[in-house]
């Protein structure tokens, strides 16, 4: 038989079935009526009618067969039945599907991100064979011989491991940060301005180890990763497509990377993004490790054994036990460290033998993104599940109410001999059908939602290796979720309807409303209220925390200030060109009539990173091993303090006279003064970075008020751009060189000057068209961007909280309205006996608020618990903040009032006479 015919019969049979059922029922009822009319007691009449009828199901089946329609499985029939019932009540179905779509959609959206960020393997060959060294993920480099859990390695250490570990079929190294790899890329001979790009230095066997092959051209090998080899680079497919228009002439062409010629030898396959997973700075280009000195020049890390900046990932040889391999690597680490005892600090010498490493599965790559978002995503998933729970409760309530209405019908089915299991199954099939519809709609919601979260909240416009498209695991998750929810919200109503009493049905009564029969809907409302309070208070706490973060005292006022980001290092300026360049830039900007002042800084407060140094004060004793002797530091031009509004409380700021011809000076902040000098006057004192011999390096000429650079007002010192000192320690020397490439210029131009950003860009382009300007932004925007993740958390929590609240209110409304409807006659009696409208409203509201009250009693402790769960994400908010709890309670109370007042008023406006007549 053709499929089409089968399907048609399915429909046909469904219709016939219902008809036959009705026909048979009307038969029984007519028989009962006649018997009663003839004087038989109704009870007896019914019993004998049923007895006479024999086995009703068998009759029905035989009747159906007589209709010569193909029999199909009863499950399929239940499904048709369910679809018909759902189609028959479009209001109910629409409400339920939308509710479910929101619940399942929210949960699936978050799960999409959870899956992408936490559960996904790299798109490479046999990722399960990949192992990485290191348990934690840290960025971006270390300058110490002690890391506890070693995950960053120098080039020398990498080569040592690679040569001595046969347990790895291949061991590759790649850069986890972007230092020395921020590129200005220009096609050789092209007049077009350079484009910025992110590079990543990798070992020659990197692609081999991951087991990928070129999409176009070739990927480089160890032969390219050698001194003297012509510089080669590989471009990512994404970059090739998005920025180079999939131009085939890119392959084999020469490009200038920060002024150095590289040949693009090939393109990686689509979807491949390397072994690093991060929310920013994903590589556009891969370059061999040995090209690093070419680009980095004086700040090169390659040959410094102390500078650990590479992550190691290897393909394990089949048959090798990872435990054994780990033990061997451990031995190798100690052997390698042992060869460097000579250049360790005393502190490191005391600790190097306790160093250890861990071999961990590397199939998912090394994920900075995971480190950053894992906890937040789990939290969001939890919140989304709470919303889903509230949604399920609503649908359960709808189904319950409908089940009550359909009781007579269900009871009749029971009277006709349908088993309870059969009835439960029938009801479950319906709720599961509903859930699957919800899931389908939910997947659409999830796709849009995940994209929205990615687009708006997590990251900026940059490309990141996260795909919001629903993948197979996501689809399976949504399906599983829908089945789970279908059972969750379907089981109680199914069970309750299955308990339908046949006798009651034949009484034809739907009014018998024993008070405690409706405990289930009330319970559900209580749960909804409790969950909503938890969501709302979590949202309130995160929102307040975000606001505290944004409005904390940073020590400066961002209003009227603008931040220009200029990448002079990537633009390939020489050290000796920098001072005149910044002077020219600042003079040019200062000449704008609406600009008050201009100053430059290595990385501006709240806009970047602070380098720490361990400090030695001249004339003070060497600090103990455990003592914290570090301070942050940065480099500025003379206008910096005035432009930022950072007040000098003692001495003087950095000035024009602090240049190459005068003695090296520093301005410190109050925290520095307090930490190292206590109540002493710091002016005129000398200090320097470790070791002791540098202690006389800088003379303190001023003290500035504390400004928050990165999270806290920590000790800081400020050095003049125009001064340069020499270090014997390579990493201090590297930073010294690096620190002269000031990345930020701050402009103070109050009063919203029109078109300032465009004018600034033009001025900079006039100075040097090849200067890479990565942004001109209002300072407040920069600060907001710092808290983007907290912003996302707070916004999504609010969204979930609002969703939960609305659903809970709808649930309360439904239950109250249903209760009022059931009690119409009771209310009629009360009013007939003299109760006024006010007291009826009060009575209904009292009932509703009892439920909300119990919900609050459960929800508030749970909210406090949730507060402790998110305590480490809160800034200036305690987990049991009474104001937040009160706020959420009031919000819920208001919503409940509205939800309960509408049915209450309807109850009060009931006509007592009519209500009584229906009795």
């Amino acid at each position, binding site marked *: 038989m053709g499929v089409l015919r089968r399907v048609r019969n399915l429909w046909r049979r469904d219709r016939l079935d219902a008809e*036959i059922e009705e*026909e048979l029922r009307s*038969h029984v009822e*007519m028989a009962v009526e*006649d018997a009663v009319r003839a004087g038989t007691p109704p009870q007896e009449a019914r019993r004998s009618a049923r007895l*006479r009828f024999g086995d009703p199901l068998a009759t029905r089946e035989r*009747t159906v067969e*007589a*209709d010569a329609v193909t029999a199909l499985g009863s499950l399929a029939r239940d499904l048709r039945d369910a679809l018909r019932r759902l189609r028959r009540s479009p209001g109910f179905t629409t409400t339920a599907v939308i509710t479910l779509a929101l619940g399942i959609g929210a949960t699936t959206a978050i799960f999409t991100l959870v899956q992408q960020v936490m559960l996904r393997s790299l798109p490479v060959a046999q990722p399960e064979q990949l192992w990485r060294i290191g348990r934690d993920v840290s960025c971006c480099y270390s300058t110490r011989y002690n890391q506890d859990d070693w995950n960053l390695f120098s080039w020398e250490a990498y080569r040592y491991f690679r040569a001595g570990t046969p347990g790895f079929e291949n061991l590759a190294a790649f850069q986890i940060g972007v230092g020395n790899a921020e590129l200005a890329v220009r096609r050789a001979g092209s007049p077009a301005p350079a484009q910025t790009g992110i590079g990543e230095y990798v070992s020659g066997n990197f692609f081999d180890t991951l087991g990928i092959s070129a999409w176009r051209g070739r990927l480089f090998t160890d032969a390219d990763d050698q001194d003297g080899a012509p510089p080669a680079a590989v471009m990512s497919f994404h970059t090739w497509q998005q920025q180079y228009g999939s131009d085939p002439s890119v392959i084999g062409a020469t490009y200038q990377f920060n002024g150095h010629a590289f040949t693009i030898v090939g393109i990686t396959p689509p979807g491949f993004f390397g072994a690093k997973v991060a929310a920013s700075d994903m590589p556009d280009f891969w370059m061999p490790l040995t090209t690093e000195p070419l680009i980095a020049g004086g700040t090169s890390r390659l040959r410094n054994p102390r500078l650990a900046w590479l992550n190691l990932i290897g393909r394990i040889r089949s048959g090798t036990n990872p435990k054994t391999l780990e033990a061997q690597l451990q031995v190798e680490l100690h052997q390698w460290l042992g060869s460097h005892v000579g250049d360790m600090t005393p502190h490191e010498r005391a600790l190097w033998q306790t160093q250890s490493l861990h071999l961990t599965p590397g199939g998912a790559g090394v994920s900075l993104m995971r480190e950053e978002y894992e906890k937040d995503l789990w939290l969001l998933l939890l919140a989304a599940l709470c919303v889903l729970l509230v949604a399920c409760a609503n649908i359960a309530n709808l189904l319950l109410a409908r089940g009550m209405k359909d009781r007579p019908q269900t009871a009749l089915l029971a009277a006709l001999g349908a088993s309870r299991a059969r009835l439960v199954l029938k009801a479950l099939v319906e709720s599961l059908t509903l859930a699957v519809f919800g899931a389908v709609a939910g997947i659409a919601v999830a796709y849009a939602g995940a994209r929205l979260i990615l687009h708006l909240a997590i990251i900026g416009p940059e490309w990141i290796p996260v795909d919001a498209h629903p993948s197979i695991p996501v689809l399976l998750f949504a399906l599983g979720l829908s089945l789970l929810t279908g059972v969750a919200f379907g089981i109680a109503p199914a069970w309750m309807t299955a308990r339908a009493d046949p006798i009651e049905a034949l009484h034809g009564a739907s009014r018998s409303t024993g008070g405690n029969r409706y405990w289930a809907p009330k319970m559900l409302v209580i749960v909804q209220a409790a969950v909503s309070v938890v969501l709302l208070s979590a949202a309130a706490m995160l929102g307040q925390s975000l606001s505290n973060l944004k409005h904390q005292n940073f020590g400066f006022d961002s209003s009227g200030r603008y931040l220009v980001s200029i990448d002079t290092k990537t633009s390939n300026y020489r050290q000796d060109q920098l001072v005149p360049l910044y002077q020219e830039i600042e003079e040019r900007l200062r000449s704008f009539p609406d600009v008050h002042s201009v100053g430059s800084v290595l990385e501006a407060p709240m806009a970047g990173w602070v380098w720490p140094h361990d400090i030695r004060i001249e004339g003070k004793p060497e600090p103990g091993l455990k003592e914290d002797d570090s301070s942050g530091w940065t480099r500025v031009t003379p206008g910096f303090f005035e432009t930022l509004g950072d007040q000098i409380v003692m001495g003087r700021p950095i000035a024009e006279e602090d240049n190459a011809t005068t003695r090296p000076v520093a301005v410190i902040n109050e925290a520095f003064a307090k930490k190292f000098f206590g109540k002493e006057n710091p002016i005129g004192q000398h200090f320097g970075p470790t070791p002791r011999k540098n202690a006389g390096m800088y003379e303190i000429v001023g003290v500035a008020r504390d400004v928050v650079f990165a999270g806290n007002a920590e000790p800081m010192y400020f050095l003049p751009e125009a001064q340069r000192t020499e270090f014997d320690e390579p990493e201090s020397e590297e930073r010294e060189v690096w620190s002269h490439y000031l990345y930020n210029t701050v402009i103070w131009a109050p009063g919203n000057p029109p078109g300032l950003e465009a004018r600034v860009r033009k001025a900079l382009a006039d100075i040097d068209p090849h200067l890479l300007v990565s942004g001109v932004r209002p300072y407040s925007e920069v600060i907001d961007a710092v808290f983007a993740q907290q912003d996302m958390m707070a916004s999504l929590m609010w969204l979930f909280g609002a969703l939960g609240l609305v659903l809970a209110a709808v649930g309360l409304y439904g239950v109250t309205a249903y209760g009022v409807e059931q009690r119409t006659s009771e209310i009629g009696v009360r009013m007939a006996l003299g109760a006024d409208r006010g007291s009826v409203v009060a009575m209904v509201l009292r009932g509703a608020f009892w439920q909300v009250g119990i919900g609050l009693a459960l929800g508030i402790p749970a909210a406090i618990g949730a507060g402790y769960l998110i305590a480490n994400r809160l800034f200036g908010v305690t987990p049991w903040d009474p104001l937040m709890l009160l706020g959420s309670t009031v919000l819920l109370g208001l919503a409940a009032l509205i939800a309960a007042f509408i049915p209450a008023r309807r109850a009060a406006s009931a006509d007592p006479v009519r209500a009584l007549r229906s009795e």
Partner: protein
Amino acid sequence: MARNDLQGSLDLLVLKTLSQRGKLHGYGIAVHIQQASSALLNVEEGSLYPALHRMEQSGWVASEWALTETGRRAKYYRLTGAGRRRLEVALGEFEELVKGVRAVLRYA
């Protein structure tokens, strides 16, 4: 002869009932047969409905939903032209059957 079984008899009773009473629902048919036979014949519902539906499939009866005097929805059956012709044939067949049975009983 195959038609002259008990099922054939039930068909005949139903067709005859409908030809006498015009439109009737299943319950009415059962009641009529019972009353007309002075309660000698008791139609089992378990056989009646399959028979009705089979006859409908064969085109002997047609059905429609209508309200009873007491306002209840019920499925009413009526004879079609084909049903009338079938009744003639069935009556003839029944007479044949009765004759045959009598003859056997007489000479047995």
